C-alpha cells in the first residue's frame, strides 16, 4: 500500500479507498482512488498549479470541482486518443491515466510566453486591432503566424480517432435534466405515473450538491441514505431511464433535446475497442424539468487567479466528496452567506480555516457565531485587495473597503496556502435560454433567473434560485408530478442549506495594483472591461467580443455575471439594462464525432448499387459515382483503356445492339384522380390528353423558368402515371413535387411514391434491338404494333415487365423495367439471344456520347442555372396553351433575348481533338482577361463521325451556326465551327431499327 497522499483526509468521501489507481501527470507517477477526479487526485498531492492561462500564460490552479472549470485544462490520452482541453475536474481517474499540462513551453514551470504577463501594459483588450498593420503584407506573413502559435490551448492529436460513436433517437414523456435533489425528486414523482421518464446527469454519480455536503437530512433520513433509496426506486421503475455521464447539451425547437452520453471514461477506451465511446441521443420530450442547479461565482480582486484559489463550494466538495483538503491554512472570502456554509463544512471535514473575509459590514448571525466559536477570525466589511504568490498562493492582503468596493488603507497581510471564494451563485439557465427564454436580474438572490419558462418546461431548485434544500426538493417533486398530471407527493422534514444568500452587490475589490481577473481563462480583467467601455464598446455584446470575456471554453459560466456587474457599475446602469449575452448550445463542449455517429468513412452516405451491380462487376466494369449511386461507367475488355472501351461500346450500339443498366433513373409513381392535372402543371408540355399506354418526354422548370429536371412520363391508367427523373435529381424532384402538392395545390388529390428501387431498368438500344428482345417477350414489338413513345406491360423472360419504347441514343430503343430480382436473369438472357448480334453491354460514358451525337441534353450538364428550354432549342416542348410552373418566368423579356447563352454544336477544326469539357469560349486569341462568351458542356470523340465533337452554351448561339469560335485549351485558342447541336440522323430514321 502506497503512502496516503498528504492532503487526503483520513476518512469520508465518495471514493473507494480499496481501489488504488496509478496515473501519470506530466510524466510524474502518482496515485489516487477510484471515485477521484484527476483534479481531486492532484489536489490530494498538494498540486494546485496545473495550467497556464490563454493570453498571459500565468500559472493557474484548479479553481472549481465541476464543468465550469476555467483553468485546469489538460490533455489526456495517447496517440489517436489524445484529447486536449479536458477539464481535470471532470475526468474520472482510471488506472494508468496519462495526463499532461498544455499551453506551456518548454514546461509548465518555466513557460517562455509568460513574458506576456510582464508585457501586459502593451497588450490591453483589443491591442491586436490597433497594431500589426504595417507593412500591410506582414499581417499574414509575420504577425498572424506568431499570434496563432501563441494562441490556442491544447494540440489536436494529429492522428485519426480510433473510437466510434453512436446515435440514438428516443422519446420520453418527461425529461429531467440534473440528478441533484430536485431532479431526483422530479423523476421519482413523474416516474410513479408509469409514463416514460428520462433523467440525465452529467456526473457519474447522482446527487449533485448533496455530494458536497454533510449533515443534511431529507424525509427524516440522512441525505446520503435518501439518495441511495431514490436510486434504488428509480432503477426499479421500468418506465424510468436514468442516464448518468450524460449531458443535456442543448434544447431545440419542438421538444427536441440533444444528450451526450459518455459510455467510456478517458483512459479506458482501449479496453473495449469496438464499443462506442459516446452516444448522442436526440430525444423528443414535450415536457421537461430543468433541475440543473447553480454555479458559484468568483470574487474579482488583484491576483485572484493564483494557484490555491478555489471557489468556496468547490473547496467543500473536495473535502466532502473526495476527502481532500484544499490546503493546511485556508481563508474564505465571501460576499454572501454561502461562504459561511462552505467554511463550516470545511471545518467539519477537518480543514483549518484561519479567517473569513466578508465584504458585508454585518455578516450573518448564527453561522458567524459558530465560526467564531471554532476560532475563525472574521473580517466584516473587508475585502482581499491583493493575493501574493506566483506558482502558489502564500499571502493575502486583507483591507477594509468602502461602499464601492474600493480597498482602503490599513488591513493586514495574512499568510495562507489556499483561498476559498464565493461571489454569489448563478442558476444554470442555459437550456431554457437556448429556447429564447427571457432572463431577468433577481436582486434578492443577486442572480439572473428565467422570467418565464418556455412552454412545457419547469425550472426548479438551484436553477430557479431556490437555494434551500427543502424548497428544491419540493419544487422538483411538484414539477415532476405536474408534468404527468399528478399531484406532488408530500415530503417529511428536510434539513439542509438555507436559501437566502443575502448577497452583497460588491464582487469586485478595486485596488491599486495587480490584475483582477474576470474571465480567468481568457485573462480579461476588470481594467479591460473599463477600457472597452471607455472606447465606446458599451453594449454587453461589444464588451464581450472586444475583451473576449465569456468566450473561453467555459463560455462565461464563471465570468459573465461578474462582467455584467462591473459593466453595470461603470456605466451606472441597472443589471437588466446591461442584459446578458446570448446563451448558445452546447452547454459544455461536445465531441464533434458524436454528431456524426457512424456516418463517417464507408458509412458517410449509403452507397447505392443496382441489382445488376454484381453482374457488371463480373464483366469487369469500371464504376462511376453519381451522387450516392455507383453506376457502370464502361466495360473494358482485356487491354482496353476507357477511351477504347467507349469507342467500341458506342460503335456496337450504332451498328448492332447494346444495353445498359438504367436502374438508377429516378422513378416516381403519381396516382390519384387529379394526377393528370397535376403533371400538366409541373411539366411544360400537355399531359391531359395523353392516352393510357403513351409515353412523353417532359421538361420541368423552376419558377424562374429555367430547366429543373427532365424525364419520361408514362400513363398507366386514367389516374396513374409513372415518371422518370434524372439519376441525381430523384430526391430533389420528389421533394419539389411534394412541396407543390402540400403547400400550393392542396385541393389536388394526388399521391406520390418513390419507386426507384422497386423497378430495375435496362435500356436496350441499336438497330437489332427488336431482334434480340422479341424472342424473350410476349409483347408484339412490331413497329406498328408498338410504336415509338408507347409503353406496354407484359412478360420478359417470364418476369412481369413494363417496356417503354424510348431512345436516348437515337437508335431503336426499349427500356425494360422489371422487378429487381428479375434483372440479372433478363440481362443474361439478353446476352444469350443477343450473342449472334454481338450484343454489347455499355456504360454511362457511352450513353453520354451516343446521346450527344443526337444533341440530347443531360439536365445538369448541358444547362446552367439560367438556361431555359428555348436556350436549349426545346421550346417545342413548351405548351403555349396552358399554364405551368415556370412559364411566366420563362416569358420575361430577358429570358428571350437573342444574346443569351444557347446550346450549340461545336466541331473543332482539328478533327482529332476532343475539347475538354468546361473550357471557356471566346472570340479571337483569348489572352486573359477576355470576355467569356460561353463554355463547352459536353465533348467526345465520335466513332461514327470519326472526329471530336462537342456541345456548348454560347452567347447568341442560335444565330451563329456556321461561324467560328475559339475554345481555350491549355492556354491556346482552338478554332471550332459552330453547328446545330445534332450530329447524326437529323430526321430520326434510325429510330425505327430493323424488323424482327
Amino acid at each position: 500500500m502506497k503512502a496516503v497522499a498528504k492532503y487526503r483526509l483520513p476518512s469520508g468521501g465518495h471514493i473507494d479507498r480499496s481501489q488504488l489507481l496509478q496515473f501519470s501527470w506530466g510524466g510524474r507517477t502518482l496515485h489516487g482512488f477510484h471515485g477521484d477526479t484527476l483534479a481531486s487526485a492532484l489536489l490530494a498531492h498538494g498540486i494546485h498549479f496545473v495550467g497556464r492561462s490563454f493570453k498571459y500564460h500565468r500559472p493557474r490552479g484548479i479553481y472549481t470541482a465541476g464543468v465550469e472549470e476555467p483553468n485546469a485544462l489538460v490533455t489526456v490520452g495517447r496517440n489517436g486518443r489524445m484529447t486536449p482541453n479536458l477539464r481535470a475536474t471532470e475526468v474520472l481517474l482510471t488506472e494508468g491515466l496519462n495526463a499532461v499540462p498544455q499551453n506551456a513551453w518548454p514546461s509548465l514551470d518555466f513557460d517562455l510566453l509568460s513574458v506576456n504577463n510582464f508585457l501586459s501594459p502593451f497588450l490591453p483588450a483589443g491591442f491586436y486591432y490597433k497594431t500589426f498593420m504595417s507593412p500591410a503584407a506582414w499581417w499574414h506573413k509575420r504577425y498572424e503566424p506568431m499570434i496563432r502559435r501563441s494562441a490556442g490551448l491544447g494540440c489536436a492529436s494529429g492522428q485519426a480517432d480510433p473510437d466510434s460513436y453512436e446515435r440514438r433517437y428516443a422519446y420520453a414523456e418527461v425529461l429531467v435534466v440534473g440528478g441533484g435533489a430536485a431532479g431526483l425528486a422530479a423523476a421519482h414523482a413523474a416516474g410513479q405515473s408509469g409514463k416514460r421518464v428520462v433523467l440525465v446527469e452529467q456526473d457519474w454519480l447522482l446527487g449533485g450538491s448533496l455530494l458536497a455536503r454533510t449533515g443534511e437530512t431529507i424525509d427524516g433520513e440522512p441525505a446520503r441514505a435518501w439518495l441511495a433509496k431514490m436510486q434504488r426506486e428509480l432503477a426499479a421503475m421500468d418506465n424510468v431511464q436514468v442516464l448518468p455521464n450524460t449531458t443535456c447539451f442543448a434544447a431545440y425547437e419542438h421538444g427536441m433535446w440533444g444528450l451526450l452520453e459518455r459510455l467510456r471514461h478517458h483512459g479506458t477506451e482501449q479496453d473495449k475497442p469496438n464499443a462506442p465511446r459516446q452516444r448522442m441521443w436526440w430525444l423528443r420530450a414535450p415536457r421537461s424539468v430543468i433541475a440543473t442547479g447553480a454555479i458559484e461565482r468568483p470574487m474579482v480582486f488583484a491576483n485572484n487567479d493564483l494557484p490555491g484559489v478555489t471557489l468556496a463550494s468547490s473547496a467543500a466538495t473536495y473535502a466532502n466528496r473526495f476527502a481532500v483538503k484544499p490546503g493546511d491554512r485556508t481563508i474564505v472570502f465571501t460576499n454572501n452567506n454561502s461562504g459561511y456554509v462552505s467554511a463550516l463544512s470545511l471545518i467539519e471535514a477537518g480543514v483549518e480555516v484561519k479567517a473569513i473575509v466578508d465584504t458585508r459590514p454585518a455578516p450573518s448571525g448564527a453561522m458567524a457565531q459558530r465560526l467564531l466559536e471554532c476560532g475563525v477570525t472574521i473580517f466584516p466589511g473587508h475585502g482581499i485587495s491583493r493575493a501574493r504568490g506566483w506558482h502558489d498562493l502564500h499571502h493575502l492582503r486583507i483591507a477594509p473597503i468602502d461602499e464601492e468596493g474600493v480597498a482602503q488603507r490599513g488591513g493586514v497581510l495574512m499568510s495562507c496556502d489556499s483561498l476559498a471564494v464565493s461571489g454569489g451563485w448563478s442558476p444554470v439557465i442555459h437550456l431554457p435560454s437556448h429556447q429564447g427564454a427571457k432572463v431577468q436580474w433577481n436582486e434578492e438572490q443577486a442572480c439572473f433567473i428565467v422570467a418565464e419558462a418556455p412552454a412545457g418546461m419547469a425550472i426548479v431548485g438551484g436553477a430557479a434560485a431556490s437555494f434551500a434544500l427543502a424548497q428544491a426538493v419540493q419544487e422538483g417533486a411538484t414539477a415532476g408530478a405536474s408534468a404527468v398530471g399528478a399531484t406532488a407527493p408530500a415530503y417529511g422534514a428536510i434539513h439542509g442549506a438555507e436559501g437566502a444568500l443575502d448577497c452583497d452587490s460588491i464582487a469586485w475589490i478595486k485596488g491599486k495594483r495587480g490584475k483582477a481577473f474576470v474571465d480567468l481563462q481568457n485573462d480579461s480583467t476588470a481594467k479591460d472591461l473599463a477600457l472597452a467601455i471607455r472606447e465606446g464598446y458599451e453594449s454587453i455584446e461589444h464588451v464581450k467580443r472586444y475583451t473576449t470575456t465569456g468566450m473561453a471554453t467555459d463560455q462565461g459560466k464563471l465570468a459573465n455575471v461578474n462582467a455584467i456587474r462591473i459593466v453595470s457599475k461603470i456605466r451606472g446602469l441597472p443589471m437588466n439594462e446591461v442584459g446578458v449575452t446570448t446563451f448558445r448550445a452546447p452547454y459544455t463542449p461536445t465531441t464533434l464525432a458524436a454528431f456524426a455517429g457512424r456516418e463517417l468513412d464507408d458509412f458517410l452516405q449509403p452507397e447505392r448499387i443496382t441489382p445488376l451491380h454484381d453482374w457488371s462487376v463480373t464483366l469487369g466494369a469500371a464504376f462511376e459515382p453519381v451522387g450516392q449511386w455507383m453506376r457502370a461507367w464502361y466495360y473494358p475488355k482485356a487491354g482496353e483503356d476507357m477511351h477504347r472501351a467507349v469507342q467500341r461500346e458506342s460503335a456496337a450500339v450504332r451498328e448492332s445492339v447494346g444495353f445498359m443498366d438504367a436502374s438508377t433513373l429516378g422513378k416516381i409513381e403519381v396516382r390519384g384522380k387529379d394526377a393528370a392535372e397535376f403533371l400538366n402543371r409541373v411539366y411544360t408540355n400537355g399531359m391531359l390528353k395523353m392516352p393510357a399506354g403513351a409515353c412523353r418526354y417532359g421538361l420541368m422548370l423552376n419558377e424562374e423558368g429555367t430547366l429543373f429536371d427532365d424525364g419520361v412520363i408514362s400513363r398507366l391508367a386514367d389516374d396513374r402515371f409513372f415518371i422518370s427523373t434524372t439519376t441525381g435529381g430523384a430526391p430533389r424532384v420528389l421533394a419539389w413535387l411534394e412541396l407543390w402538392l402540400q403547400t400550393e395545390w392542396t385541393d389536388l388529390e394526388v399521391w406520390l411514391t418513390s419507386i426507384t428501387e422497386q423497378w430495375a431498368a435496362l435500356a436496350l438500344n441499336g438497330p437489332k434491338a427488336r431482334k434480340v428482345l422479341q424472342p424473350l417477350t410476349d409483347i408484339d414489338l412490331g413497329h406498328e404494333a408498338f410504336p415509338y413513345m408507347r409503353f406496354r406491360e407484359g412478360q420478359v423472360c417470364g418476369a412481369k415487365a413494363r417496356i417503354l419504347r424510348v431512345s436516348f441514343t437515337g437508335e431503336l430503343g426499349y427500356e425494360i423495367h422489371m422487378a429487381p430480382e428479375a434483372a440479372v436473369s433478363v440481362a443474361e438472357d439478353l446476352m444469350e439471344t443477343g450473342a449472334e448480334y454481338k450484343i454489347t453491354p455499355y456504360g454511362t460514358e457511352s450513353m453520354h456520347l451516343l446521346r450527344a451525337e443526337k444533341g440530347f441534353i443531360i439536365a445538369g450538364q448541358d444547362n446552367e442555372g439560367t438556361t431555359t428550354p428555348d436556350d436549349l432549342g426545346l421550346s417545342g416542348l413548351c405548351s403555349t396553351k396552358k399554364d405551368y410552373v415556370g412559364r411566366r418566368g420563362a416569358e420575361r423579356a430577358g429570358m428571350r433575348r437573342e444574346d443569351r447563352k444557347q446550346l450549340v454544336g461545336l466541331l473543332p477544326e482539328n478533327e482529332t481533338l476532343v475539347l475538354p469539357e468546361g473550357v471557356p469560349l471566346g472570340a479571337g486569341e483569348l489572352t486573359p482577361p477576355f470576355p467569356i462568351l460561353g463554355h463547352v458542356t459536353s465533348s467526345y470523340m465520335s466513332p461514327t463521325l470519326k472526329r471530336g465533337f462537342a456541345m456548348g452554351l454560347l452567347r447568341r448561339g442560335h444565330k451563329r451556326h456556321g461561324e467560328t469560335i475559339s475554345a481555350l485549351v491549355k492556354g491556346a485558342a482552338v478554332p471550332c465551327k459552330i453547328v446545330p447541336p445534332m450530329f447524326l440522323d437529323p430526321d430520326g430514321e434510325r429510330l425505327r431499327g430493323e424488323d424482327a
Partner: protein
Amino acid sequence: MQKYSAISLAYHAFRGHRHWQRAWRSPEPRQHYDVIVVGAGGHGLGTAYYLAKHHGLRKIAVLERGWLGGGNTGRNTTIIRSNYLQDESGGLYELARSLWETLSQEVNYNVMFSPRGVLNLCHDEHDLKGVQRRVLANQASGIEGEFLTPAQIKKEVPEMHVACPRLPVLGASLQRTAGTARHDAVAWGYARAADALGVDIIEQCTVNGFRIEGGKVRGVETTRGAIEADKVALVPAGHASVLANLAGFRLPIESRPLQALVSEPLKPCLNTVIMSGAIHGYVSQSDKGELVIGGGADAYNGYAQRGSPHVLAGSIGAVCHLFPQFRRLRMLRSWGGVVDIAPDASAILSPTPVENLFINCGWGTGGFKATPGSALAFAHLVANGSPHPKAEGFTLNRFASGLIIDEHSAAAVAH
C-alpha cells in the same frame, strides 16, 4: 481620429490606457440627414463610410436595431474569395477581394485579412467538371485560381484525408489570394472610420416605418422618433423583406437560418480554408485557434437566429469525414443568423419602386466577403443614382426582366 499603431499603443501603455478616445460616438439622432443608412452591419457601415469619403456627403446616419455588427456580420465564418462563376459576380467579388488587401490601412483598424487560400473540393465527376470549368472561367477573366489534383491537395493540406473511403476528394480549386478576416473588426473599423468622417451611428434604433410622399421617400419612423432624410439606403440583410414591406414593395427574398460553430481553441492545425459543396461542410481555423465549421442553410424560412440540429450535425459530419483527427475535438459554441437568399443566389444593389430609397440585400450565405466591394458600389449608387460599373447587373428589376445572375452552384455550400 486617434491613430492606431504600435507606437500609439506604447504611448498609451505608459499613460495607463486612460486616454483612448471612443471608437465611435453615441449621438442623439438629428432631425434631418442627407442620407440615412438602415442597418449597421459591415455593408451598411461601409456604405456610410464611402458615402462620406468618396462622395463628400457629411450628414449621414446609420440606424441600427440592436448593437452594431450584431447581425450576420458578427455571426459569419468570414470566408473571403472571389472565384465565382458568372462574370458579373466575379467582377464584384474580385473588387471586394482586392479592397480587403488594404482595408486595415484604409480604416486604420486591423481587420486581419488573411489570404491563407481557399480550397473548394470535388467528390465526383460532375463536381470535378464544374470546378474545372470555374477555374478556367476565373483565369479567363483575370481572377487568380488554380486546379489541384488529389496529390497536390495532399501536399497543401496534409491533415486532410484526401482518399477517404466514401466520396474521396478527386480535385479542388485553390484560390491562394482568398482567405479569412476578423468579422467584428470589419464592423468596428468601418464604424470608427465613418464616425471620424462625421457619420452618426445610432444603435438601439429600429426603423419601423417610412415617410413617403408622392412616391418619394422623405424619412423614416423609428423607435427613437421620426427622422427626415433626402435619401434612405436599406442594408438590413435577413430583414430586407420586412423593411421592403414597410415601404410598400415586395422582394423576392427568402430569409432562412444559417448556422455555424466553433470548436475549443487548439494550437495551429489547419492553415487553409476547406470547403466541400458535395458533402456540405467547410472548415478553417481562427487565429484564436478554434476550428470554424459551417455548412448549408436550413430549408425553411424563419427569423429566429437558430436552426435545426440535424443540419448542423451534417456539417460537422462532413468535416469529421475529411479530417479524422478532428473527430475527438469538441464543439464549443454554435449559433445561427438569418440570411437573405434571392432566387438566383445573387445580391441586389438597386433603386426601389420608391424614389430615393435604395436597397442592398440578397447576399445570403456569402456576403461577408463582399463587404468592402458592396459598400463601395452601393455608396456609388446611392450618391449618383446610377450603378457602379462593377455592379450593374444586380438590380431588383432583373427578376422582372429575367436577366438573372445564377450563382447557385457557387452558393450550394455557401460562402
